[in-house]
Structure formats: structure tokens, C-alpha cells
């Protein structure tokens, strides 16, 4: 397929892998311990597993799958609130498809739908606005979630709802921001990350400047990357090249989409509509200051949390879960006590088993090296 296959060329991949091997040979630290590079974004995690990139890398390079899966990090209490909204008489709850399976403490949206709630899968917040326009007698609540990538379309939809004076449309806002979260991870004492593959689509909105604190304060490289497999390999090479040269800087591999300055129009819409919350609760990571946004007072009429009573009860993560340690790269997914036993994609206990972009679900479903190379009967690995 034109403009896609070019970014999946196996010959170019081999060349990049060879380059990565050369860089690894030049990095002294690799002889002491493996390097840990975190891909922040769930989209990268998906690419890494879908194309089997982990198995192509030298053992000296470990990928740590970061917190950038908005579905995974949604706390149970927020899902409960969303289910409560969906179950209000006369409500249509519009949501992205991958959010419907996320378990709350009582049920998921999919279960709520089976129990009679009107839950509709949409592909864009504008679809939700159209539902409101087409059903003036019903309240349409859009389950807004995602990082800076999905904030601008939500913001523009709210602005349009206001311009058209659509009164039966509101948001249950769960938008979150990536920068405070990267900082929270870097500040954790047990973390030993050596560099980051930065989220391309978030950067398309916010640009590259917000990551400057990572090299400046923590001396770690950040390379903003696209989502095709060659993008990921090239970005990994760029991170390793910085480490090999003893440098730490923010670099942009994804220039074809993400401008260094970000997207001013998108940022303007976001700032016009949203303001930072004091803190926001993350599944697996706990509460992080200024890591979520809510609608500004001027748009309060579109805020489902202000308009309707939501239970707003915080539900603690199950004790057995070690999602936080996996997210920070302290342990591997399969080293978690409940991985694949009490916690599976069919019945996820922890955040990271929820969506295929979560580190644990990706390992479980697409096979980390453990599952592919260590057959149950203990015989020789697959060649």
C-alpha cells in the first residue's frame, strides 16, 4: 500500500538493526546491564508487538512500555462514574470503541449496555454531537478520553456545541496530560530508564519544547517518533546514538507530521476550553498533580460532572497488581505475581491487561519473548 509499505520495508529494518548493534557495541554501560528505553505511547507499544520488534533487537536493549495508553490508565472509579452516567434514564453514552471493555468495580460499559444502557460507539466527538442534534429529547454524554492528541477534537466539538447552542450534549472529561506523568515516573526512586521514545501524536499538538526538562534536568535523551515500525527502529537508533555520544537532547524523528513548535491552532482551542485539574488519579500510578484537565467555567454547561450527579468514588487498584512497577520498568510484565493467572485479558485485574496497548495485554496476546521462546514443556526454543 502506497505511503504505508515504505515505512515497513524489511531491508531498511535490517539496516537499522545493524546500526543499533553497532551503537550497542560502543556503549560501555551495555556490558554492565541492559539499557532501558521507554516508549511512552501505547501506539508505539502496539507497533512494537504487532511487528515483533522486540525480537529483532539485541538483548542489551530493553523496551519499557510506558503509561501512554489512555484506556489502561483510567481508574476504576472513573469507569464507575461513566457507567452511572450511562445508566441515567434517557441518556445516550457515546464512547470510543476500546473504552467499552474497561472494567469498573461493578461493570464495564459493555456490561452496562447489555443491561439496557444506551451505549453507542463513535469514531469522533463530532459523531457524538450529531447524536445530540438528532436526539433532542435525550441527553448525550461523550466519554472524552485520551492525551493531548485527542484533546483538540474534543475542544473544537465543545466550541461547536456552544456555537450551535446544543443543550443536550456534554462531556465526561478524562483527558490527561503526558508531561507531568513522565516527570512522575522519572522522580520515582527505583526507576533506571536510560532514554525515551517520545509520543509522536501528542507532540504533533504540543511540539517538542515541553520535553526539554528530560535532558536538562534528568540527562536522558528523548526522541519523538512516528508509529510505523521503521519510525520506531530509527528513533531507538537515535536514542542509542545520543547515549553512545554521551549526549542528552530532545530530537524529532517524526518531522513529517510533528512540527517542533506543535500546532498553535489546536493548542489555542485546548487552552480556550480546558484547564488543568489540581490532580488526576491514574490506574497503576496513583494520583499525579496537574495531570488531567477539565472544562473551564465558561463551558460548564457541557461538563457532565457538573450537570449530573456522579458518584465520584475513588476505587483503589487491586492489591495484587504491580502495574506501577511494570509501567516504570522496575519489573517485566511476566514477573508480576498475577500475570497470566489471576490477571488475563479476559478478566483483567490491572490497568495494563485492559487494552492491547497495555504492556501486559500486549505481552500476553502478542507474545513477549518469554511466551514464544519458553514452551510449556521446557524444550528448546523455537528457532
Amino acid at each position, binding site marked *: 500500500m502506497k505511503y504505508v509499505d515504505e515505512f515497513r520495508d524489511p531491508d531498511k529494518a535490517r539496516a537499522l538493526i545493524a546500526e543499533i548493534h553497532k551503537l550497542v557495541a560502543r556503549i560501555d554501560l551495555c556490558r554492565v546491564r541492559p539499557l532501558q528505553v521507554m516508549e511512552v505511547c501505547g501506539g508505539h507499544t502496539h507497533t512494537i508487538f504487532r511487528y*515483533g520488534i*522486540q525480537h529483532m533487537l539485541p538483548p542489551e536493549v530493553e523496551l519499557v512500555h510506558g503509561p501512554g495508553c*489512555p484506556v489502561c490508565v483510567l481508574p476504576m472509579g472513573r469507569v464507575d462514574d461513566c457507567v452511572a452516567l450511562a445508566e441515567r434514564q434517557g441518556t445516550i453514552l457515546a464512547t470510543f*470503541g476500546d*473504552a467499552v471493555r474497561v472494567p469498573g468495580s461493578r461493570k464495564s460499559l459493555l456490561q452496562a449496555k447489555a443491561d439496557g444502557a444506551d451505549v453507542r460507539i463513535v469514531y469522533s466527538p463530532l459523531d457524538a454531537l450529531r447524536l445530540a442534534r438528532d436526539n433532542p429529547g435525550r441527553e448525550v454524554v461523550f466519554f472524552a478520553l485520551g492525551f493531548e492528541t*485527542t484533546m483538540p477534537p474534543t475542544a473544537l466539538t465543545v466550541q461547536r456545541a456552544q456555537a450551535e447552542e446544543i443543550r443536550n450534549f456534554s462531556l465526561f472529561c478524562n483527558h490527561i496530560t503526558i508531561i507531568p506523568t513522565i516527570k512522575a515516573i522519572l522522580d520515582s526512586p527505583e526507576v533506571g530508564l536510560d532514554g525515551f521514545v517520545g509520543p509522536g501524536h501528542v507532540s504533533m499538538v504540543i511540539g517538542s519544547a515541553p520535553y526539554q526538562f528530560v535532558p536538562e534536568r534528568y540527562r536522558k535523551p528523548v526522541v519523538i517518533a512516528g508509529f510505523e515500525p521503521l519510525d520506531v527502529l530509527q528513533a531507538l537508533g537515535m536514542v542509542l546514538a545520543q547515549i553512545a555520544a554521551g549526549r542528552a537532547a530532545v530530537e524529532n524523528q517524526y518531522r513529517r507530521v510533528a512540527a517542533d513548535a506543535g500546532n498553535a491552532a489546536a493548542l489555542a482551542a485546548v487552552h480556550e476550553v480546558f484547564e488543568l485539574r489540581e490532580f488526576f488519579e491514574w490506574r497503576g500510578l496513583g494520583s499525579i498533580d496537574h495531570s488531567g484537565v477539565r472544562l473551564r467555567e465558561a463551558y460548564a454547561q457541557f461538563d457532565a460532572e457538573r450537570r449530573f450527579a456522579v458518584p465520584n468514588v475513588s476505587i483503589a487498584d487491586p492489591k495484587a497488581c504491580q502495574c506501577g512497577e511494570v509501567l516504570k520498568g522496575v519489573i517485566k510484565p511476566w514477573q508480576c505475581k498475577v500475570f497470566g493467572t489471576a490477571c488475563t485479558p479476559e478478566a483483567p485485574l490491572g490497568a495494563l491487561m485492559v487494552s492491547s496497548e497495555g504492556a501486559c495485554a500486549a505481552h500476553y496476546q502478542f507474545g513477549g519473548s518469554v*511466551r514464544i521462546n519458553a514452551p510449556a514443556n521446557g524444550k528448546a526454543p523455537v528457532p
Partner: protein
Amino acid sequence: MSALPSGMGRERAQTVTLAHGSGGRAMRKLIADVFLRAFDNPTLARLEDQALVGLAELAALGDRLAFTTDSFVVTPLFFPGGDIGHLAVNGTVNDLAMAGARPCFLSCSVVIEEGFAIDSLRRVAASMRDAARVAGVEIVTGDTKVVERGACDGLFVNTAGIGVVPLGVNPGSNRARSGDQVLVNGPLGDHGAAITVARNDLALQSDIVSDCRALNGLVAAMLAACPDIRCLRDATRGGVATVLNEIAESSRAGIRIREAAVPVREAVRGVCEILGFDPLYLPNEGTLVAVVPRDAAAAVLEAMRRHPAGQGAALIGEIVDEPRGTVILNTNFGGERIVDMLVGAQLPRIC
């Protein structure tokens, strides 16, 4: 229309009402006008509570009876490449064919929502007639129910079928052995992609048509080339990935697939790229997975490619010893990954 009882002319009503399900004159008229007229065969025309089929003619075809049933619900009822009628006939014909059976007779039960257009019902019956003719089966018994508005989504169809398995033919999901080759008869995911586009949630446009078709002729040609086909599976819901997992599990074997060898149309790949779907999991309605002994693979592949339903046939992988019960994909890109069973339906990803 020789099979029609006298006095049963064309139904004049435009839509199905609860009266058509009451068992009285209106129902008889609907059945005669829509179903008897379309299916037109003497076994059905007896209009008794059951069809009678001779044992001798069945026994002459093989040594075991294959018997299956399937219910069909699809939105939209009419889609590029077929409709619920084609699906209902081909789905059951294919379920029989996957035992290596020669399909013979089908039943047809419909549950109709009141208000359903009789013209649409006629279209569905005509599709069933055409599909049955192509597959060489007769629809010999049936049932009609009408339910209140909202109790079903337009039209549900159930078909059951019987066929006969020839002596010595014995495909089974537990029979794959290390070294066996894995074949498919054509590009994956056409049906799933066609339905997704036809639902129009995304206002996508494409020329993708469903692969809905009967596979019994193709299977007969494959069995002629190799009577000892190990496994034959129709890759409907859950797609080829699910079928491969079932074979790997039942046979306690591993399966290695080469992504580069898996046929997928460009347009289907495009739909998958936009929605974050994997064509390996998209449903098909005329796509089979066959596992055959290594030394028979070339002959079976050639036989498939000579048949209209197998022109796009491809050898996509092989059975391996380890890891047992697991399907592994060697990606185009040079990596590898497990292809697991889906947990639920494939859902579009956010970003």
C-alpha cells in the same frame, strides 16, 4: 408454478404483519407466495410438518451423515456481495463441506419482525434459491414466525443442513501434524470489511464485496487431489486467526504463518489501517483453512487454483512441534509475534 397449492396467488400486502404469523390463511399465503414460489421442489411442496428424504440415495453417497445448524443475524441485511439469504445457505453448506460432506438438504426457518417489507423477504428468498442452486442443495422444510416490532432486527434466518461424508474422508481439527502445510483459498477479510463499510458509520467508500460463497465444490476438488486432508475449517467469525488457534489447540501443535504469504486485498488492508483491525481476525463467509500433508500441498494448491472459489489460494504456513497450542506469525518486517484468540469483538482503537 406447479408446486403451489391451488388458490394461492401473489401476496398483496406490502409488509409482514402479526397476521402473517398466526397460522391462518395469511400465513399460508405468505409461505406459498414467498418461499414455495422461490424454493419450488416437490419435497417442500407436500406442505407437511416434515420433509421425507430417501435413505438409499443418501447411503449411496458415503458412510456417515453430517448434520449442522446455524442462525444468521446481520446488519445490514443486504450488503455488497450478498445478503442474509446467501449467508444462510452458504454458511450451512460450508459447515457441511468442512467435514468433506456432500451437502444435500437444508431447512429454512425465518423469524420476521412485523413491518418487514414483503418485497425484501422475496429478495432474501430468491437469494436463498440462487445460492441453493449453485451449491446443489434443496431447501426441503421450513418454518415462519412473526414477532412484534422490536423483538428482532428485521429478519433472522436459521438453516439446518444434512450432507453425506464419503468413505475415507475424515478431516478433523485434531489431525494436524508437524510438517503439514497450511492453505487458504483466497484473500482474507473481504466479508468483514464489506460489512464494516456497508454499515457506513465512517462514511467510507470502497468496492470491497463479501466473499460469501459455497465451498463444497472447491472442497470436492481438493479431496480429489488429496483424500487425506487433515483439517478443513471455514474461517467465519473470528477469522483465520481463530481457526488456526483452534487447530493448534486441538492438535496440540504449533503453527507458523508467514505474513508475506497471507493474501489480503489492498482495499481491505486500507479499512484495517483506518480502524486498527487485523485482517487475520476479520470474518469471512467463503474462506477456508486447510491443513494438508506436506507432499500433497502442491497438488491441493493447484486443484484449488483451478476452481473458481480457490483462484486466490495460497500456502501461508506450516505446522511445527513447538510452541504447542500456539500460532506464531513471522511478520513482513522481520519480527515475530503470537497470534492469539480474540478476547471479544475487534474494536476500533482511539489513537
